[in-house]
């Protein structure tokens, strides 16, 4: 949750606060925690993402605040049992407002030796480690370089290890079903989910309902999975190995009143586009080509044709944006969705959209680059591509969401700019926002912004001889936007193209002075976009350090700032939603602070822009390992900046 409300509880993002409740006779201990970080890890085929999703849904419906980090390989089924094949899902949930998926898990569920080996380094001593002992065969251990069994050689002595034969127990629980051992064993993720659901007092109805719906056509499979899920729960309740269960109370105080749901960034972004279409009263048209991690937006929008949404899966990235641009010419709210490599292919068409001055949303779910890079990992390294990756002077506004739920609002904002100013707009999300999820306060539909536009309907210019004509490039003096005259409007027939055009008439013009004027005018239009001032969170008012961020680093930056403040440090924080144009007050804000640190998941792209534009000696703090920042690492970096 991204609420700005401050309370003592949320300051303490680093320590798990526990309180023990005395058990009644015959009952197991129940401990209260204020927050927990769980990581499910297994083979790509073990269903860890599904398990994590289900635990998240249970947690959301229970009312905790939460933040998630799915982490999986690009291969659909990497070789079984290998380190590259490990898929994991980390979930942080709390009784208070939290900002990140958490730095280090309190509980690791390792479904095989590879999962243990790949993840144990992130787990602090003293944490609980649940391992599926069935998979710890000599061969499986050798595959990942364990000479001796980590379950027996003492290397896990510092952890609270729960060795559980998950596969055997699952197969045993499903013996009355007519399933092979192999098929029955597949439900071991549901057994593990049941066990963890017991450990953390999660509601179970949602998961049972989910399984019934998911396997509606295979009732036997649904029943087997539910049986495995319940068996996992009962195992926790009866076995002595699990002596304690935990309660994490709902985060009622952290949330403003309202109705909530859990939502991922790509889902929120999809809903934002549908909402923008409704608010603009324009049909939504998506032209797209499948690419990780953006494809889920194509999948989602294609489900909502009853909202008048047209989705076109094109032959390539270029055709995806081309079709969208064609639809924009025809009066649709046009969108193309992609990731960095796709943006590279779309560049020429983005330039055409700049030249034609038509509204178009370019959604870039950034991933690790260059080239194919790390398709399933996150990065923020497309900022300069979005800003400058075109031939000629081709300014494009850039908007970036900060959290998964914020993708909804950012989509509406990008649409506002596009339709108001008749321009392509970049919406820069990333893999971390796209797949991560958090609770979202469902907005009231009647509170959404009004994005309605006026299509041109008649002549707009009088020639010297008194003739009334339509000039496709005669601009609105306030916004510098040109009229949006869609085909089908009588009397406004006109031709537009990528060749430089004469101011006003839009006719082809190679006149040097006119080109200079048009280049400057297109730039002025983007520079003049009305964006809100940057808000600075400077709690004490005496901070010397400003931390400036953009995009998905919001969570870890804010968590780190809270830690420093909890430790008595003054630090100011500001987070940019608009990267082009920058908020009007940005220069003034930067000059108020002795030091400016800019953390980015790239090698300093925003810092480059800031230094060039404002001549401020901003310091870059960078990480490009495909993973989001950890709060602890940022807190350390900010502390060094304050001290240094």
């Amino acid at each position, binding site marked *: 949750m991204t609420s700005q409300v401050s309370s003592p509880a949320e300051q303490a993002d680093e320590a798990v606060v526990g309180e023990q409740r005395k058990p009644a006779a015959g009952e197991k201990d129940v401990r209260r925690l204020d927050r927990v970080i769980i990581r499910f890890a297994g083979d790509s085929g073990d269903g860890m993402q599904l398990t994590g999703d289900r635990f998240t849904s249970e947690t959301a*419906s229970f009312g905790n605040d939460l933040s998630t980090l799915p982490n999986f390989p690009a291969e659909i089924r990497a070789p079984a049992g290998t380190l590259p094949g490990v898929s994991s899902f980390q979930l942080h949930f709390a009784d208070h407002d939290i900002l990140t998926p958490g730095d280090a898990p309190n509980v690791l569920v390792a479904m095989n030796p590879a999962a243990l080996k790949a993840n144990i380094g992130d787990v602090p001593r003293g944490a609980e480690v649940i391992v599926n002992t069935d998979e710890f065969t000599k061969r499986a251990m050798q595959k990942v370089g364990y000479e001796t069994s980590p379950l027996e050689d003492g290397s896990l002595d510092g952890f609270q290890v729960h060795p559980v034969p998950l596969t055997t127990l699952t197969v045993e629980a499903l013996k009355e079903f007519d399933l092979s051992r192999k098929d029955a064993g597949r439900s071991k993720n549901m057994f593990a989910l049941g066990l963890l659901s017991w450990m953390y007092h999660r509601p179970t109805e949602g998961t049972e309902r989910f399984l019934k719906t998911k396997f509606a056509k295979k009732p036997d499979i649904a029943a087997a999975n539910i049986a495995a899920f319940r068996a996992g729960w009962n195992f926790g309740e009866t076995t002595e190995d699990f002596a304690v269960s935990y309660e994490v109370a709902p985060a009622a105080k952290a949330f403003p009143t309202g109705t*909530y749901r859990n939502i991922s960034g790509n889902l929120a972004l999809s809903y934002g586009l*549908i909402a923008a279409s409704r608010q603009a009263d324009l049909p939504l048209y998506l032209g797209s080509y499948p690419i990780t991690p953006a494809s889920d937006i194509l999948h989602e929008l294609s489900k909502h044709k009853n*909202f*008048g949404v047209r989705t076109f899966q094109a032959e390539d990235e270029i055709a995806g944006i081309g079709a969208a641009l*064609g639809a924009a010419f025809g009066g649709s709210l046009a969108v193309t969705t992609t990731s960095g490599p796709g943006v590279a292919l779309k560049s020429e068409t983005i330039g*055409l959209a700049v030249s034609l001055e038509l509204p178009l949303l370019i959604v870039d779910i950034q991933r690790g680059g260059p080239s194919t890079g790390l398709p399933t990992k996150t990065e923020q390294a497309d900022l300069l591509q979005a800003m400058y990756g075109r031939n000629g002077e081709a300014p494009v506004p850039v908007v970036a969401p900060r959290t998964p739920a914020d993708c909804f609002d950012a989509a509406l904002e990008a649409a506002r700019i596009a339709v108001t100013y008749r321009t392509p707009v970049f919406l820069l999300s990333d893999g971390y926002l796209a797949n991560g999820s958090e609770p979202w306060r469902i907005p009231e539909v009647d509170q959404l912004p009004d994005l309605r536009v006026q299509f041109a309907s008649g002549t707009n210019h009088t020639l010297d001889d008194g003739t009334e004509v339509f000039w496709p490039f005669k601009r609105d003096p306030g916004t510098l936007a040109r009229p949006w005259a869609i085909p089908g409007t009588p009397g406004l027939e006109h031709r*537009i*193209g990528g*060749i430089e055009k004469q101011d006003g008439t839009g006719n082809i013009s190679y006149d040097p002075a006119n080109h200079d004027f048009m280049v400057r005018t297109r730039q002025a239009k983007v520079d003049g976009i009305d964006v809100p001032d940057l808000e600075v969170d400077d709690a004490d008012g005496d901070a010397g350090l400003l931390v400036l961020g953009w995009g998905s680093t919001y969570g870890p930056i804010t968590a780190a700032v809270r830690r420093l403040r909890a430790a008595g440090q003054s630090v100011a924080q500001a987070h940019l939603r608009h990267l082009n144009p920058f908020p009007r007050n940005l220069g003034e804000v930067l000059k108020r602070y002795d030091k400016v640190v800019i953390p980015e998941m790239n090698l300093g792209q925003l810092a480059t822009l800031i230094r060039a534009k404002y001549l401020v000696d901003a310091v870059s703090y960078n990480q490009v390992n495909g993973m989001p920042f950890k709060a602890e690492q940022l807190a350390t970096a900010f502390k060094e900046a304050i001290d240094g």
Partner: protein
Amino acid sequence: MADTTLAGPTGSETLLKLVPKAEGKQSMKDFKSDQEVRWCPGCGDYAVLAAVQGFMPELGLAKENIVFVSGIGCSSRFPYYMNTYGMHSIHGRAPAIATGLASSRRDLSVWVVTGDGDALSIGGNHLIHALRRNVNLKILLFNNRIYGLTKGQYSPTSEVGKITKSTPMGSLDAPFNPVSLAIGAEASFVARTVDSDRKHLTEVLRQAADHPGTALVEIYQNCNIFNDGAFEVLKDKQQAEEAVIRLEHGAPIRFGTDGSKGVVRDPATGDLKVVAVTAENESQILVHDAHSASPTTAFALSRLADPDTLHHTPIGVFRSTERPVYDTLMADQLDTAIEQHGKGDLAALLAGGDTWTVVG
């Protein structure tokens, strides 16, 4: 008498019906824009422009509901000269842009103007996918077998060994046959015509306009600057008699002086070949069936011409068959979704299934 009306497919009428009709009578002048036409004097493009402007009044559509979309190249300046809506886009991408426009606006008549370089080289991918999807587009492919705008490099339809600025020792790559390519790409309508034959060009345009789905019209067009006379053999009256095969649906495929030559199927290979017509073989002469569900014979016809001499070049409609139109199917899915789930309710969508409420 041969059936040359070809108005056949029932969907055509209904699709054109979606486009509003002009209120008054139109003339060629109504379709001329105020822009000066800037092709080289003598360019074949002038003839095509005149034919299209002359044909448009016959369609009788509201001109504000007509859109011309082009890519890059000499022919792609075409939209600037039509007093309709138009977009001069970027190299090769016109079919993609037009697909978005046509599939979102079924009340428009959308035309693509492209050239051999634009459509078959840089934009080859978009062309074949537009054809297989059968979007309601009319694609006019001006084929002059040369790059004109960049001043004379060989194109993907140039004959092998073409000496140009970029191939001083002769071009190495085998050319595309646009008609063969289109048929191979599942095109539902494929025709070929010649810039200088206004009557034939107009008739082909008429049939293309009528066709529901993507219509590809290859227009042999003379570039008098960089590839002059490329199609002379098809234009010179005397030579044309032997070189040109005029395809008419339902008519035996005959050509030459007094129809002395004809096309028959070789029983051994199934291929087509040209024979001298005799009393014995007259009944064997292939009768052209543009509506055939199978593209096999249309493809074989497209292979008849000698790529070097252009002898035995069929012109006319090779193939005109009806199959589902992409934009219609897309619109139907939207209607079906509303029938099944009701019109979208944003509040219900945002709320989803699992929610919880926090009270103050």
